[in-house]
């Protein structure tokens, strides 16, 4: 069956969240009821701690399309990545004025400077930046644990109450459930004819960090049931994986899929790297378990050595039967740009070609990008035959 038109009502609910973000009706209603909302930057910030404090964590993202970034350029200069410029511009223009706090990690130059300038120019009541080691050694884990502990203390001082282990365990359960549900969703994408597209998946993931997790989990559970009975199947000429810089624009994925390449998986911090590994308590204190998960999670290109990231990309390529990789790297996103020649060679060694695209954050994939993707899809299709 090739019934690609079956509706998924819950998907529309996710789309509604994304359309109205950052000031979604749900978030603003929670604010009215006195709940605090914190923004976080980068997947090395442990959401569970914010959640356990009774605060709604939402991910700070930039404009959903490629925009003129006059303010972003003026404040961060043109050579910082358009993601950080886009986020800062939204902050400067009051689109995140409802945030009660901002939490970041020292993950890359762009994130560090975005945080610096946010602190300097935007008056959010609470700020915290975590030192995030670049290694996975035991001393690195100890340092990160110390950082997480200090963050929790800072938050407790600000809120004037303790974030108990019980609360942390509850938050871990909520977040792990979300990860498990997303894993189930991704399992469906391994099928020869997946019931969901890459663009639709990105809509779901965007909503996952823009709404209360408990509600997201309910919705996703519902969506998975809808998918099961939908009979949807998406055939494709080629199966693709998207890798590289931060990207959360479903339009970009859609533009690839329009050309006959189905995006079946990804290595993005807004997608697989966001949900991939659970927090494993395994006799550890909740804080230790959170710390270990966040530093050992599917790595960003910032981590050293890069082999960990490369291995997991190769593993994804095999598991999802990927025919080709589209590497989209935002201009001036240096960590990913440095890794590109190394990972391209490794993918080529397992017979997976890579298309390297220099993009700006929010790009829809039109114009020259579209032409290059079209040629790539045709090339990969020819290689398959």
């Amino acid at each position: 069956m090739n019934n690609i038109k079956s509706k998924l009502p819950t998907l529309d609910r996710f789309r509604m969240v994304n359309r109205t973000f950052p000031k979604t009706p749900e978030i603003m209603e929670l604010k009215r009821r006195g709940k605090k909302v914190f923004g976080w930057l980068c997947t090395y910030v442990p959401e569970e701690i914010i959640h356990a404090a009774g605060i709604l964590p939402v991910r700070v993202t930039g404009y959903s399309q490629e925009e003129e970034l006059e303010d972003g350029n003026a404040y961060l200069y043109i050579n910082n990545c358009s993601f950080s410029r886009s986020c800062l511009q939204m902050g400067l223009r009051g689109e995140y004025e409802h945030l009660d706090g901002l939490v970041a990690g020292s993950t890359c130059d762009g994130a560090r400077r975005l945080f610096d300038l946010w602190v300097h120019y935007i008056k959010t009541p609470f700020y915290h930046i975590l030192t995030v080691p670049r290694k996975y050694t035991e001393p690195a884990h100890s340092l990160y644990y110390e950082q997480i502990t200090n963050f929790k203390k800072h938050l407790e001082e600000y809120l004037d109450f303790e974030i108990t282990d019980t609360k942390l365990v509850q938050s871990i359960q909520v977040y792990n459930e979300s990860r498990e549900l997303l894993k189930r969703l991704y399992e469906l994408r391994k099928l020869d004819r997946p019931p969901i597209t890459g663009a639709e998946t990105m809509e779901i993931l965007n909503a996952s960090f823009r709404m209360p997790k408990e509600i997201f989990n309910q919705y996703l559970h519902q969506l998975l049931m809808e998918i099961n009975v939908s009979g949807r199947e998406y055939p494709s000429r080629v199966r693709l994986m998207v890798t590289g810089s931060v990207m959360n624009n479903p339009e970009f994925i859609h533009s690839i899929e329009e050309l006959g390449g189905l995006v079946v998986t990804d290595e993005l911090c807004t997608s697989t790297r966001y949900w991939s590994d659970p927090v494993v308590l395994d006799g550890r204190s909740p804080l230790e378990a959170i710390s270990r998960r966040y530093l050992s999670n599917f790595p960003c290109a910032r981590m050293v050595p890069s082999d960990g990231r490369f291995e997991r990309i190769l593993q994804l390529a095999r598991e999802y039967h990927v025919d080709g990789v589209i590497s989209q790297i935002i201009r001036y996103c240096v960590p990913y740009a440095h890794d590109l020649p190394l990972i391209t060679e490794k993918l080529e060694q397992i017979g997976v070609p890579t298309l390297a695209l220099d993009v700006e954050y929010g790009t829809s994939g039109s114009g020259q990008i579209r032409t290059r993707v079209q040629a790539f899809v045709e090339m990969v299709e020819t290689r398959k035959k």
Partner: protein
Amino acid sequence: MTTTENKNEVDLLIRSFRLMARMSRARPTVRSSETLYYQMLSEYYTRIRNANKDGKLLAAHTVFFPTEILYAMDIVPMHTEMTTWLTALFLREQAELLAKGAELGLAPEICSPHRGVAGIFGLGIIPHPDVVLWSNLICDNTAKSGELMMKLSHSPGFFLDNPFQNSLGEMNYLVGELQDMVYFLEERSGRKMDWNKLSEIVARTNLEMEIYREICELRKAVPSPMSNQSYLELLSADYMFPGQPEAIQYLTQLRDELKLMVQQGKGSVSPEHFRLMTLFIPPMYLTSYLDKLFDARGAVSAVEPLFTQWSEGKLDPAKPLESVAMKSFLIPERRSMYGPLSGQALQDISNAAKQYKVDGAIYWAFIGCRHTCATIKVIKETLNEIDVPMLTVDCDIVDPTINSEEEIGDKLAQFFEMLEDR
């Protein structure tokens, strides 16, 4: 040792530096410290060239790397970024280096010294290192350049993870990282760390920092005694020979020369019209041009807060490894470029503008350096608050194709006219 020699490029560099030293010596108007500077460069690259012959391990390393440890272990350091820009500056090979970097797949947005480093390794125009050492101090480029260098040189490597902030836990982490690096180097070199030697180096580093600070104090004098772009020599002294007799000799000579000039009321430019604050580094390939231009305008770079203003602090030779870790928190670049941009860092820039009585500031907006350029607006506002105008010049420190000499000259001319009107 597996080191192989490529005599052509390193020999050319050595020859250039020797020639420069001879020319400096022959001209009585040139500072003796400048002669010493070229002798240092010559000596530095001679050691690199001879590492294999001398049976010493050659370690390629990124900028702001704690090479005190290498000197204590009798390992020869080779500063990769500095080698790139010196090759570009003295041998004019930037186009070839950058082309090779591009050929290796590095995007043009990656900073040119790092594309050049890949080019240098890819072309094999420098001696083959036995080990590659790199760290995240000072940016993502340094953090990410090591693995490609290892691949291109087929050498083992060690990444030194430098924490972002200065807490006790982070300091301890860095000390642990340094200890791991010592183990790595002991294993690779077959030599044990000489802790006494490291203590001596740390003690000399204290002296080095002390002289450095004296030089900074002398530069507050009006007219300023230090010539334009000479601060690049200051930086290089610590890049090449931290805590080494060579650096001490050079800095002592420079300090004494400056002291004499201050006593005599002499300035490096005469008459001195404009005292400037330099932010970041001007294009290396325009050093002579800018020197002439500044001299003709009576302009002098009096202070460079991002590069020459060390944080307060003293190292403890009894705790050499901790001291090496601490030094990385004292270097000027850390405060202003790597670590969090604190209110104190901005206040220090503002204070420097007042203490050095600057008329204006020039921010060399190096297109490859993201974390410095992100501070342009906030520094400009900070300086404007004390009525110090700032000119921003887009540039690249290695790649001359970003903008022309005339373009930069015109911008500077307009800025000087504006300062004149004030």
